Structures are given as C-alpha cells and as structure tokens.
C-alpha cells in the first residue's frame, strides 16, 4: 500500500528525515512510534500531501504522492495532532462541509454524515456548535471527518491524546473494525501499551531513521523469549540455590528480597523440570514466570 523510499526532509539546518525507508501493507493497522522530534509528523504530512520532501518518494498503491496528489487525497483521511474546528458551524454542517470538499453530493453527504456520527456515538450532538464541544468530542469529530470520504488509507497523528479512557476504547475498537473492513491505518501515539494492543504492525523511528519494523506479536514474542524468568519464593534453602547456580541454562542470577530473576535459554519443558527440581530441593515457590515483552521496554531499548 505505502512504500517510502529514502525520504529526506530538512527544516533550516535541522534534519527531520534522514533517508527514511519503510513499507506498510494493505489492511495493516500500523503503529508509528518514536520520541518527540523523531520525524513521525513530518512523514505523515508528506504522506497526506501536506509537505514536500527534499528528496525520496512515497508511493501509495504504486502512485507517487507528488504526482497524483489530487487523486490520492481523495483516498486518504488525515487526522493531525491538533483539532482545527470552525466557529459558528454545527457538527452536521462541519461534516457536510468536509464532504463537499471531496465533491460529494448533498444526499450522499447527509447519508455518510449520519452513518459516521452514528458510528462514533455522536448523533445526539449533530445540532451542537462545533466550538462548544469538549476536547474528546472534538477529537472524535476529527476522526469522523477523516472518514467522510470513505478513504482507503487513514493517517492518524496522535488521535487519542487527551481523550478520556471511554473514548479511547471506542476509538481503538473503531480502528480495529475499520482495519478488518479493509482500510489501511497509520497511527502514531505515545501510548505504547494501547498501540501494542491495537496494531498489527509497528515501526520505530528516531532521528529521521527507521530503527525497526515488524509484526507486533512477533516482536513482543521475540522480546519475551529474551526476557528473564522471575521466581518469587516464601522459602529458598541453600540446596535450591546451589541447584539453580549449577544449572547449565541459568546465568546471572539477580537476587532481590523474596525473589530471584535470571535469564533462562531453555524450553518451557526445561523450565518446568527446573521448577520441579527446586521444589524437590525444599524451595517454597509462590510464582515462577517469564517477564512479558512490552512495546514500552522495546521502545526504550531501541531509542537509547
């Protein structure tokens, strides 16, 4: 769906993108992760046709954004990291205005507006003035607006920042539903836990370069395997400790109060055998598990 090749952008003397290359497949819910100033917004703006890259190119379905801008803009829905709203416009009119910008007819517009407001539980707000809405509602409206042209690609720049948990959950479910319906979604957020639950794929960017990219589950699984085991105990006699230290697959045991943690390179069966041996050596163990992989931990590892 999206192919980004060697994208470069400089603001004055500050490089924002330094040869960014990445690919996003069709029907992917792609999480774009990176620290502030990493180049996420710049990349998203270039994809949405709002910025021209200094060099490199972006292809959407094989078409260059700079060449087929007008056509591609009709297939992209963009939500920036702010919500621009107009005074003196009602919610319904706001939606109708954006629909008219895509050349939609009156009947088509009304139908689509009704559908989207219903989808985002905003039907009862249709007669309200846009500028009187709460922050969360404005953000929901921005997402609805981005969907008005029924785009194939949704580019969302931190769409849930400042949203209350209820709306965040609604947004997450909506995005997953849209992805299942065949839309490709590129979303950036600083809430990594949420992204790891929602996205199918992620890309980590820093200083204008892509540091890693892949399937979220595979990355987390890979990270989980390299994570240490944690053993929490009530009683841990010397015999058990000697057994643990002498085990060929156990290295670098970290000892804390009532818990131990150690990297273990064996299989689940080998871990089960180790646990049985420790219990047999007189250890009273309350829990024994491998630390779960998290996007947050991965992000910190990759970006530092």
């Amino acid at each position, binding site marked *: 769906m999206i192919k980004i090749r060697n994208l470069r952008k400089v603001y004055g003397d500050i490089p924002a993108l330094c040869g960014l290359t990445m690919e996003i497949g069709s029907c992917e819910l792609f999480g774009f992760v990176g620290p502030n100033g990493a180049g996420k917004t710049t990349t998203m703006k270039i994809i949405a046709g*709002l910025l*021209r890259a200094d060099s490199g190119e972006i292809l959407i379905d094989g078409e260059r954004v700079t060449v087929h801008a007008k056509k591609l*803009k009709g297939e992209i829905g*963009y939500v920036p990291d702010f919500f621009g*709203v107009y005074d*003196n416009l009602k919610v319904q009119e706001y939606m109708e205005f954006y629909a*008219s*910008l895509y050349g939609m007819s*009156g009947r088509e517009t009304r139908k689509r507006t009704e559908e989207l407001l219903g989808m985002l539980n905003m039907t009862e707000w249709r007669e309200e003035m846009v500028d009187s809405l709460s922050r969360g509602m404005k953000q929901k409206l921005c997402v609805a607006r981005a969907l008005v042209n029924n785009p194939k690609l949704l580019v969302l720049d931190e769409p849930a920042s400042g949203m209350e948990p209820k709306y965040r959950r609604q947004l997450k479910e909506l995005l997953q539903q849209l992805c299942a319906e065949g839309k490709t979604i590129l979303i950036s957020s600083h809430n990594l836990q949420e992204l790891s639950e929602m996205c199918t794929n992620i890309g980590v960017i820093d200083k204008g370069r892509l540091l890693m990219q892949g399937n979220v589950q595979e990355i987390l699984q890979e990270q989980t395997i390299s994570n240490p085991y944690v053993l929490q105990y009530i009683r841990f006699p010397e015999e058990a400790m000697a057994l643990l230290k002498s085990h060929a697959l156990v290295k670098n045991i970290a000892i804390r109060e009532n818990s131990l943690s150690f990297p273990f390179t064996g299989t689940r069966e080998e871990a089960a055998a180790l646990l049985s041996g420790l219990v047999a050596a007189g250890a009273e163990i309350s829990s024994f598990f491998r630390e779960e992989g998290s996007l947050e931990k991965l992000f910190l590892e990759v970006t530092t």
Partner: protein
Amino acid sequence: MRHINPVYKRELKQTARMKKTLVMLLVYNLLLACFGLLVFYLMFDRDGRISNRVEYSGILTLYTVMSILEFGMVLLIVPAVTAGAVAGEREKQTLDLLLSTKVSPLQIVIGKLAASISMVILLAVSSLPVLAIVFSIGGITLFDMANFLIFIIVTAIYIGSFGIFFSVCCKRVTVATVCSYSTMIVLVILLPILLYAVEFAEVFRKIGYTSFTALSRCISGKRALLLLFNPPVSFISVIKNQAGRGGNVMASIGSEGGVFYFLSKHWDIVSLLCQLLVAIVLIGISAHKLNPLAKSRKRA
C-alpha cells in the same frame, strides 16, 4: 448549489451567523442614511427656505459624496477582511485540513476572496435604497448606479487580491493585515504623491521656479500610466463620467495627446482591466504559494 465553491459557501454561512455582520450592516447604513438625509435637507429644504432658491445640480454632489463614502468603505474594509482569510485558517489550524482534501489551493483562494468581497457587495447593495435618494431629483440613472457597483466590485477584487496574497505569505493575521494596509497606503496615497513630487521637481528643473500653475498641473507623460493601478484615480474617472466631478485630473492626463487622450477618455475601463489583471496574477501566485507540493526555489 452543488457547484458553488464549498469554501465560499461555508464562509458565507459563518459570516451570516456572526453578530458583527449584522452590526456592521446596521451601523454602515444608518450612518449613510443619516448623512444622506442631512445633506438632502441642507441642500433642498433649508436652502429653499433661506434663499428661496434650490440648486438641483446639488444632487450630483450628494451622489459624489455618498460614492466617496462607499469607495472609502471598500478601501478600509477589504484589506482587513482578506488579510485574515488564509492566515486566519492557519492560526485556527484548519488550513492543513483544507489542504488535505481534494479541494485545490486555487479554489481555496477564490473561495476566500469571493467571501470577503461578498461582504463588501452586501454592504454596497444594502445601501442602494439610501443611494436611491439621488433618484428623487434625477441626474443619475440606474445604469450609472450599476456601473458604480461594478467599479466597487472590481476595486474590491483588486484590493482583496493584495490582502489574500499577504494572507498566504504571512503566518499571522496581524502581520498580513499590516502588510495589506501598508500596500494600500503605498498604492493609494504614496504613489500619486511620489509621482506628483517627481513632476514638481521636473518643472522646477525646467523653468527654475515653481508656481501655483505648476503645482496645479497633474502628473503627465508615461508616469501617468502608473496611475492606472491607483483606485482613487479610477474612482475619479468613474465619477467624472457620471457626475462631471474631478475632470481636471483626467483632462491633465489627456493633454499629453495620442494614447493618453484615448486613456483619459476611457480611463475607468482601462484602469479596471489593468487592476483585474493584477488581481488575477496575485490570485495565481497566492494559489501557487498555498500549494504544499509546489516546488519551492528556497531549498534547504
């Protein structure tokens, strides 16, 4: 309604809902009506009672004064309204949203300009009943009035195109407004003063002294062509044709003979065409500058 520029349609809707619009219409027409009726009273009722004589050609003065007010309104309002058009969208962070849709930068610029000018047209049209005072005596025809309305619209487009241009170039509304008014001051006031000063210096150099005759002489030669872009001179030429006022300026330009004589006779049409041309160029440049994907010469 489907083919109306959506940006223009939205702007009209928003403007119509603003209390400011209502107040502006009310105040403008109230002032114009009070002024018109006062002048009408002074010219016909009072003078008739005092001197037992009524000067019916005074209605043309009344028309001229009211036209000056309308023209002044365009010069004052249009730069302010248009300067905030695109810069305002940028400040409200809605410009990127507009540009991310299928609507072209040219449509945005035209929609914005048309909406700003609509406000001026609304003021001009709403004041027609007040201007109709001049029909009570005669001397001014409906055709003259229509001509004047066209002149007001073209002037609004011309001045508005400068406002839109600065609105696109400047990030802040305040800066765009300052630039628009500065340009207006240069175009409306400083340009004639400068040309006049050059003319004055030339006369002084030729004859070694200046006289009231030299001072009263207007700008001549090719320099006069620059006045084609000066709205007040265009206004004078329109009023001269309708009410016979301001003939000296035109006669002075025509005294050069040849093409200048032709120009002095058709100054209103030629100047309006020149101003429209400038407006079209400025609108084109504005649309190009607004296009985020347009190639920029300034590359980091």
